[in-house]
């Protein structure tokens, strides 16, 4: 699994599309901005990309759910050769922590989930102004 993180509007999606040549390579693209998160049984492709993780977490800010979600995909990837999962998350954790409980919880769970993904993924990149910095 590969975790791609970075601030908003830094070109994360574009970088993933170019890096994995997704205009040519078959894949399933699942966006947190427009749809629900798919489970392993629901896709028929070897490459799956999740973008907008923070948007899903905002709708369901529960660590336990996302922990088992990441684990399910981790196991799916290991289940057969050639499978690959890419996670794209917008960093929302480096600003002022808001007073509203919901907003705080969202940032808290998102930060926790990103740490979890950074642990489980073999590769982590941070995108800044379109440039990737490999962190793991």
């Amino acid at each position, binding site marked *: 699994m590969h975790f791609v993180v*970075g601030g908003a509007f830094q070109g994360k999606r574009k970088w993933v599309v170019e890096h994995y040549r997704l205009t040519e390579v078959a894949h399933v693209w699942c966006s947190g901005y427009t749809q629900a998160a798919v489970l392993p049984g629901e896709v028929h492709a070897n490459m799956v990309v999740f973008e907008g993780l923070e948007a899903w977490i905002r709708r369901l800010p529960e660590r336990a759910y996302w922990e088992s979600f990441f684990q399910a995909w981790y196991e799916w990837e290991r289940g057969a050769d050639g499978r690959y999962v890419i996670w794209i998350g917008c960093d929302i954790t480096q600003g002022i922590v808001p007073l509203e409980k919901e907003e705080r919880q969202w940032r808290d769970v998102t930060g926790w989930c990103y740490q979890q993904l950074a642990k489980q993924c073999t590769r982590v990149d941070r995108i800044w102004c379109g440039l990737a910095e490999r962190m793991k």
Partner: protein
Amino acid sequence: MIVFISGGVRSGKSGVAERIVRSLASPTSTIHYIATANVTDDEMRERVIRHQQARRLQPVEWVTWEQPRHVHELIGTFRTEDVLLLDCLTNWLANELFHAPGWENEAYCRQKAEHILATINQLSAVAKAVVIVSNELFSGGVLHDTGTYHFMKMLGWLHQQVVRAASSAIVVQHGIPIVKKGEGFM
């Protein structure tokens, strides 16, 4: 040549940018400081004065242009040996976007951002180097009011385009420059 320098508030961006500008200048260069801040309150005025005094103590001659918008109007005044410091892109974009109604419309904002990019490219074509200072404000969550959203989206787009065109890109943290692309001039 374009050098892009970004960082948080009070990270020491301007200081690093000024050092780089001096190292790029040759004995025949004039250094032009393009200030885009719209000076509207006392705090901003104090900040401007502090920056001006810091520059006055330096051995090279600085020419200051207060230009919150329409930076392209200055293009004719620069010579090929001159070095320009534009401080900062964040203010410039905000001034262009919010000066008049229209920012509710994304296409309008895109047009303003494209015009800024074209001006930056022209500046780099007429002068020896242009050093552009901007801000890091993309990692604290996206604000959903239309004005802020369009501003962040356009600034992020501009950052990507400028870094692509730049020969160097640097992030400053606590006064320490971290080179992301090209050389650091240190």
